[in-house]
């Protein structure tokens, strides 16, 4: 009970400060650090999602990005995906599955010193591509890999 109360108080204070900051024009909504990009994640089309998240969907295919994912995923609920980007100055890595109901799966912002590497496990509703989008030096690069899913991961 106490914990819940504290959480609510903390939450309302944080929301209040953020509101003031946004109101004062100090922070542009959608670009607020640590704010979850709900608009981008809510998009049903991958291009829209990427444009909302990264500001553009214009990407160059790059051989410097490698995606490690199984060719055949026995269980779509758990598809291991590892993205490695060999180029310099990687700012973010975004993982998307265009055939999912919500195509945008995960996005990793990488600070200076972080390598162009991210590994996680994602859900895939059906067979299709896994897309990696890497932002480096203000430009977007992409690569994809097809994954065949034998059992869907979205409950069905």
């Amino acid at each position, binding site marked *: 009970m106490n914990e819940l109360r504290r959480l609510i108080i903390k939450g309302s204070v944080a929301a209040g400060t953020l509101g003031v900051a946004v109101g004062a024009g100090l922070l542009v909504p959608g670009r607020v650090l640590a704010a979850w990009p709900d608009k981008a994640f809510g998009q049903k089309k991958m291009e829209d999602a990427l444009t909302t998240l990264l500001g553009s969907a214009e990407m160059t295919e790059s051989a410097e990005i490698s995606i490690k994912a199984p060719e055949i995923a026995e269980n779509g609920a*758990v598809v291991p995906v590892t993205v490695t980007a060999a180029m310099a100055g990687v700012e973010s890595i975004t993982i998307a*599955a265009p055939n999912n109901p*919500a195509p945008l799966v995960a996005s990793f*912002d990488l600070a200076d010193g*972080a*390598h162009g590497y991210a*590994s996680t496990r994602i*859900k895939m509703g059906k067979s299709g591509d896994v897309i990696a989008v890497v932002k480096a030096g203000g430009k977007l690069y992409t690569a994809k890999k097809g994954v065949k899913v034998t059992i869907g991961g*979205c*409950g069905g």
Partner: protein
Amino acid sequence: MATIKIRAKEKDGVTTVKALMTHPMESGLRKDSKSGGMIPAHFIQEVVCEVGGKMVMNAHWSGGVSKNPYLSFKFDGGKGETLKLTWTDNQGKSDSIEEAIG
């Protein structure tokens, strides 16, 4: 209750972090087979990793990340420092862990 298992190892100037979190990661798109209603969304939205108070990695996730999510990333340096990993979900819950980089 700790919900995060983490391992951070430094080798040749590069630290590799591997983390495993306990979380249902409900996308909100799944039906409850018993009641027929939708299972409400409950997933980790954000994972932040700080080393020595400096942010190294900040991940934004959707419900498309698997249940009990796994995460791995790498960064330069980190030897002898302490790493802090925090997750926050869409219901406002959060947990964090501190780990000395070995």
